[in-house]
């Protein structure tokens, strides 16, 4: 329950117990995540990944250098609050890195602060394409909706002639809608209707009813991962869309790994395109999952947000290491632009030096039963080393 205090206290205790030589340096990292409210699981999954990474990678820091993460709760997509928290972290706590950023609105509102204060901002989740263009001090290690939804559209046009598009009404939703529509229609498909669903607490039934009544071959949906994904999946099942032969497709947010256990049997057969699945069999992922379950229990599953946070910490540690603990903002950005990790749990990743955005593989997955539980089984690699298509199409950096 008082997760924050407990982990903060443990961290402080651990830090204080280490024998600190006189020349020791503590690098402060500010992490703005969602730890309360209906979307608390999202931030918790990120926070856990951050703590786990720090625990297992103490040797990756230069000697005499310590890292302290100051975690703040934004309560959900609350851009005003997030901006306030980021500002306080920068001005009062004098952080050298700003990270976390579960939500697009929160990242967007905090971006100007990164520029003004010259604080490198490592985005661990928020997926709207335009974010990285808002400040030269932003680097994103998570994903963009265009990366997943454009290939999904192209692939879907081979299987389905018509599709209905339903997305949440905010940044990532608009991106997913535009990306899928482009991919789908460019490859010959027809979008028979679309709807934007309010972000705050929607009842999905009327919207899914609209989708059903348009009689498409498939419904492409995007909602924030977590409880909303479960809710829309339930609506899909309750209205009998699966029985009516309408396939449910979307980016991996809708079958997010940590929520699959709560969705019942409805998701079986749902096809998604995404950059990470907890069921992936590559060795780096197996090691990651094992370490996670050892720390957080057999019944706990990391999500793609956990991997985003994990890789984010890896990137930050890399920047710290290369500068031997003397962190300069511009040098950090130069280093982060060149960051690569061939062995992330999601496969090979790197940062595009021009756009400071993530480059990674996208996989086609199907929800199947594996070992008695539902999992996103990776069927094939739809595209390798995908750069954010939106920026390419629109010529933005």
């Amino acid at each position, binding site marked *: *329950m*008082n997760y*924050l*205090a407990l982990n903060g206290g443990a961290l402080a205790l651990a830090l204080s117990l280490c024998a600190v030589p006189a020349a020791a340096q503590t690098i402060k990292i500010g992490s703005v995540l969602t730890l*309360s409210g209906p979307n608390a699981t999202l931030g918790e999954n990120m926070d856990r990944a951050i703590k786990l990474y720090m625990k297992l990678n103490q040797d990756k820091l230069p000697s005499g250098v310590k890292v302290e993460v100051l975690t*703040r*709760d934004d*309560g959900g*997509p*609350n*851009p*005003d*609050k997030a*901006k*306030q928290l980021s*500002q*306080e972290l*920068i*001005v*009062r706590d004098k952080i050298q890195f700003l990270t976390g950023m579960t939500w*697009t*609105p929160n990242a*967007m*509102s905090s*971006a*100007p*602060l990164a520029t*003004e*204060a010259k604080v490198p901002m490592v985005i661990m989740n928020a997926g*709207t394409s335009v974010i990285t263009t*808002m400040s030269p001090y932003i680097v994103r290690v998570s994903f963009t909706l265009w990366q997943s939804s454009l290939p999904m559209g192209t692939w879907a046009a081979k299987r389905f002639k018509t599709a209905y598009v339903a997305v949440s*009404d*905010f*940044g990532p939703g608009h991106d997913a809608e535009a990306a899928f529509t482009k991919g789908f229609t460019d490859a010959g498909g027809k979008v028979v209707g679309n709807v934007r669903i*309010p*972000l*705050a607490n929607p009842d999905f039934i009327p919207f899914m009813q609209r989708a059903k009544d348009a009689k498409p071959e498939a419904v492409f949906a995007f909602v924030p991962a977590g409880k909303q994904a479960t809710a829309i999946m339930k609506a899909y099942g309750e209205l009998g869309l699966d029985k009516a032969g309408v396939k449910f497709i979307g980016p991996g947010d809708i079958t997010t790994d940590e929520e699959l256990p709560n969705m019942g049997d409805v998701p079986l057969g749902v096809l998604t395109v995404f950059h990470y699945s907890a069921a992936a069999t590559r060795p780096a992922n197996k090691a990651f999952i094992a370490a996670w379950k050892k720390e957080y229990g057999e019944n706990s599953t990391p999500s793609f947000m956990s991997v985003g946070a994990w890789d984010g910490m890896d990137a930050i540690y890399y920047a710290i290491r290369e500068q031997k603990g003397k962190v300069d903002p511009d040098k950090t950005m130069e280093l982060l632009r060149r960051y690569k990790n061939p062995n992330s749990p999601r496969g090979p990743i790197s940062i595009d030096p021009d756009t400071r955005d993530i480059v990674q593989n996208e996989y086609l997955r199907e929800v199947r039963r594996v070992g008695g539980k539902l999992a996103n089984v990776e069927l094939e690699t739809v595209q390798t080393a995908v750069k954010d298509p939106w920026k390419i199409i629109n010529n933005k950096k």
Partner: protein
Amino acid sequence: MSTHAGGYSADPRVRWIEFLPWIVAVAAFFALPEYLSLGARILIYVLYALSLDLIVGYAGIITLGHSAYFGLGAYVAGILAAKAGFHDPFVQLAAAGAAGALLGISTGAIILRTRALTLLMLTLAITSVLMEVANKATALTGGADGLSGVVVAPILGLFKFDIFGKTAYLYCLLVLLLGWWLVRKMIYSPFGTSLRGVRENSLRMHAIGAPVYWRLVLVYTLSATIAGVAGGLITQTNQFVGLNVLSFESAGELLVMLILGGVGRIYGAFVGPVVYLIAQDLLAKQFPEYWYFGIGTMLVLVVMFARGGILGILDGTLAKLRRKP
């Protein structure tokens, strides 16, 4: 509404103790440079609370929809700055106030014909309408993502709105000073007295031929204007507007701040936000659940035992001390 000790004297001259808040504010500027953005927020909420006190405390109108004017002011300033290219801070602020006034008079004229639940419901509905518009008119307001790109030019070309909030703090302090002076002047005027008459016994006011309705509309409009200005300030300070400015939760919080300080007295609007926001800054981050529990309990206790809020308790204590030989 029960009367409260020491609410306002008949003497309109400024008492020495009334300089205290301003001295504290200026001292804070020098003593706490890292907390100036919190300070600016407190100042803005004091102004906002003052505007609410005008209608709830002095005119006795219960509303849960005051955030409509605050939010409208905030968005108008933001849209002018981000979409229409008006970067001058004074233009933005004036527009925010004007928007508040316009909405205030149009809605006030309509809803003040009703009472009690109907009035409350109308205030809620009006705010909800604005909230929906802000949510859906994404091209103008940014919707759920919020409105970024709010550019506020340096004041008089010299004082930039920076990340530390130094300019913002002094700017808000100045605006608050003006707002306070205006409110104070009004309260001690004959108009202010007639307002108290309306609150205490509107039936009698009708009987003596004083036009109640138009007085209420006037004070409501004034209050909405000030709230609009406060909204503009918050946009300029944050250089951002989010849907939160229109939320019920923040309207509820404002009411709590006002009650905490003491309703129906100018300085209640000063004490309340200061105590609430500082306490929130210290406590709420660590223990968000306990914070709401504490606030709720405090509200219930205040209503049952300490209706005058902090200032009421202070007055009571002072009165007891004076009685001792």
